């Protein structure tokens, strides 16, 4: 593990990603301390003011401090990202292990259902699910989780198929280890590398999808400070108050960028083919 941390730090790109991600996490955790105002506090005398020393990123049409809202927005983004990816990763791991290990009918059944989900573009599928469940923060997370399940399932299944061919699995069987124990102790740990990489990459995808859904008005509902919601609100004032759009967009871009850098770097580190 120490070896692993050292390698990430040696890899400059990965380090940038890691620092960026840590900053976003810190921002989210310490939001109440970092943000100068409550995210929904309206300064009615200061509507749509540009950046100043009092309002770092300016204010919106209700006089709310954009800096505070961006900081609190990190909370929403991370929360959606982690829980949605958690849902997708959990079910993906479960289905993937079952499909890959038992193959046959279970495999056919699981993978055909996943194929159906795969047939829809991510955002469209998420939109449909939210439309059915009703727009809210919880339902956004559920929808994104469902959208991400097939990717994880397919990835884990193919990894399981490779791992299963190793003689240590036959050996474990030959020693009398039960199927459940073989899956939990020998197969699951051996598919963790691609799983972890996929989680970091899915995190950025989930954050982006949440912003997209919120922008369309089907995700997080105002007045909750989501970056997507802020973008939606800034739409009408783009020409007179561009800061309303610029800062949340920058926050989204930087966050996604850092998660992707970290994911790429992890993929290189965990790829057994690239190991020396």
């Amino acid at each position, binding site marked *: 593990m120490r070896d692993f941390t050292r390698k990430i730090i040696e890899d400059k790109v990965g380090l940038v990603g890691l620092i960026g991600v840590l900053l976003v996490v810190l921002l989210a955790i310490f939001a109440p301390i970092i943000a100068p105002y409550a995210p929904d506090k309206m300064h009615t005398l200061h509507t749509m003011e540009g950046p100043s020393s009092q309002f770092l990123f300016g204010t919106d049409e209700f006089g709310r401090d954009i800096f505070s809202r961006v900081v609190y927005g990190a909370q929403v983004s991370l929360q959606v990202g982690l829980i949605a990816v958690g849902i997708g990763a959990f079910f993906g791991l479960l289905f993937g292990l079952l499909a890959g290990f038992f193959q046959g009918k279970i495999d056919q059944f699981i993978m055909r259902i996943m194929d159906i989900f795969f047939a829809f573009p991510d955002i469209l599928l998420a939109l449909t699910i939210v439309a059915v469940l009703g727009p809210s923060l919880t339902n956004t997370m559920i929808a994104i989780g469902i959208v991400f399940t097939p990717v994880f399932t397919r990835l884990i299944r193919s990894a399981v198929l490779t791992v299963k061919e190793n*003689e240590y699995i036959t050996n474990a069987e030959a020693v*009398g*280890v039960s199927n459940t124990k073989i899956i939990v102790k*020998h197969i699951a740990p051996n598919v963790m590398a691609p799983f972890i990489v996929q989680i970091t990459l899915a995190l950025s995808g989930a954050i982006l999808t949440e912003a997209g859904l919120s922008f369309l008005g089907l995700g997080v509902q105002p007045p909750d400070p989501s970056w997507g919601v802020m973008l939606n609100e800034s739409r009408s004032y783009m020409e007179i108050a561009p800061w309303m759009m610029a800062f949340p967009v920058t926050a989204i871009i930087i966050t996604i960028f850092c998660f992707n850098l970290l994911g790429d770097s992890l993929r290189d580190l965990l790829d057994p083919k690239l190991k020396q």
Partner: protein
Amino acid sequence: MESLLELKDVSIDFQSKRKSFNIIKNINLKIDRKMKYGIVGESGSGKSLTSLAVMNLLSDNLSIGQGEIILRTEEEKVLNHLSKKAMRDVRGEDIAMIFQEPMTALDPLYTIEYQIIEVLKYHRKMSKKEMREKAIAMLTSVGISRPEKIMDDYPHQLSGGMRQRVMIAMALITEPKLLIADEPTTALDVTIQAQILDLMNDLTEEHGTSILMITHDLGVILETCDRVAVMYAGQVVEESTVKNVFDNPQHPYTQGLLKSIKTLGDRSEKLYSIPGNVPTPDEYQELGCRFATRCPFAFDKCFSEEPPAFQVGADQTSKCWLHDEEANPNE
């Protein structure tokens, strides 16, 4: 005395949605206690499948069509009729197995200690400390010099020979009645091969374990086994003591195999090889002898009727029409 493991008329079939065919046909083997039994054959002769069938580890599209695999320990068990749970108790406890590829036969994520102790966990009720002590003792007995250090190592830190020693330690730690070794030395250096074979011999002798040695290497058979079955295309074509088979081979296939060994000092230009290839299962002839197409002595009957296993001499069988005086045109 009754034999430890007996295969009675065992056939293995392959099924898929489109086709199904027979792969292993009517195998009869008897392995006595403390006996070292070899199965020799080319790639694709079904020797590994036979060993997997004994362990009940055949993949889903393969099944034992008929016959019985009987294991006699304290009680008599028909292995191919056991429940999954009962079979798991047999594996590792009564029968252990060593595989060909020591590089992939250990899980890369766990230490040697974990993997050896895993075997004990399923078959013995022992405290952690006892298990660790037993594992260290076992590693010492397979000739590993610093067992305490090796215990905390991961498989990639060990050489091929060391890993195979660890595999042997894992296999023998429960003192099984039978050890199945599927090409245990094929992936190793020639110098290490001899060491590993010696080690297996010594340890099994010590514990009174029988060995079922699966190999394509006649040298390994000669060095380690008491009896040998020669397999060809899913059938046992000749069976006897190692001495009989090597000194006095009866089946044309065995004769061909022995002729194709090059000995030191043999200066002839060309190495003998049996013409043709081993047929794949879908090419097996329905009728007649499966070796007939490559056999230099084949005659009409070989293509029309399957030869039974003829008793040749006191303790030798050969599945060839040449032994039938009525059928053989050369006599």
